[in-house]
């Protein structure tokens, strides 16, 4: 398991994002859902999900929690 799954990644900025409508078998019940690559303030990028309000490129997002090792973020402000 990578360190990304156990260390709080902290806040960041949305580098890119999409809303997935056609999901893989394991996530069919989640769809539609927003996923994003977040440019973390700590320097690197991480792939995760966005909860709540839709976030666009450049929006600030805060880390909320890991769910089954997937980092979830929420739009700030």
């Amino acid at each position, binding site marked *: 398991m990578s360190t990304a799954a156990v260390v709080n990644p902290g806040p960041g900025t949305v580098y890119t994002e999409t809303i*997935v409508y056609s999901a893989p078998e394991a996530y069919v019940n989640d769809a539609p859902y927003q996923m994003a690559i977040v440019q973390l303030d700590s320097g690197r990028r991480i792939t995760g999900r966005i909860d709540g309000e839709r976030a666009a490129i450049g929006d600030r997002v805060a880390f909320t929690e890991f769910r089954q090792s997937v980092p979830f973020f929420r739009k700030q402000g």
Partner: protein
Amino acid sequence: MRPVAVVGIGKTNFGAFPDRDLRSLAVEAGQKALENAHVQPSQIEAFYLGNFAGPSFVGQNHLAPYVAAGMDITGVPATRFEAACASSGAAFYQAVQSVAAGISDLVLVTGVEKMTSQTTPKVTEILAAAGDISTEGRAGATFPALFAMIARRHMYQYGTTREMLAAVAVKNHANGAKNPAAHMRKVITMEQALAGKPIADPLTVYDCSLISDGAAAVVLAPLERASEFTDKPVRILGIAQTSDYLALDEKDDITTLRAVQTSSEKAYKMAGVQPSDIQFAELHDCFTIAEILAIEDLGFVKKGEGGPYSLAGCTCLNGARPINTSGGLKSKGHPVGATGVGQICDIAVQIRGEAGERQVKRNTLGLAQNLGGSGATSVVTILSAA
């Protein structure tokens, strides 16, 4: 290194064929290529198979000797190559090396995928394993989602629009409608393309290639022997394969497919040509944005200009540089393991002057670009009249 030529080509139709299994498709394409080269199975010295996920799609492994024996080819090295959607591009690359090095004279390369026996969510899951499942896959990324995130960033950085993406789909469907072997022979309008069902925003169903069954094959020989097999040999002028990170979050700039850049730079150098010399091309349009990226990363236009270039019609059949005259993965179909060798066949058909109403006039120098995953493998081949 000695020059290598394509001396025989063969393809099945691409489509959804519930009554056909993987082996019968691969055997049909292989036998067509052998017949096209006037070669007997016993003359083949090595067999290269490109296949992404036969074990997942149809449950069969050890596929290369299984397919080869279906053509009565035994007693030779028969090996499967896996490089996601560049699987048969990678098999072709290795086969060219073998002939160029003088290890083999006559070799058969076949690509095959049998995808439509699974449901779309299952196919989506199998394809997602071409990305990094420990990060992207776990977060719920599909392949459309990865390319949607690339498209979003490309739009943000360069002003690429939905219309520019849709122009790629409209053009490829127009070409595919003229290709009797294509999966979806249907002309679509810009309005239809823009109003498609959303798959992964901003990509709609019209931005995504098809889930297809199909196979393609080529026979390779040293150029000096090519006239024994065909009066229309197609020379492999340059070829290169390179790699990159799988995960998008490990790449510095996701709007550039670095492996496409590096493989094309090497292929151009080997061929002794410039990007501007390429007259026509078959590009890996697994998604509309992927064709736009390829146009840029192959050096046909500057970064960021691929969208406007497509919208202006420069890549149409009668444009300055026709791209995907076969219909591309979008309309011809994308049986992933067959795609790389299928592109070589499509370029060869143009160089031989056998493309019918899709025939381009400037047909002596073509390029095929086969992409694996979201850019972790790229194979670029430059082909010319011999």
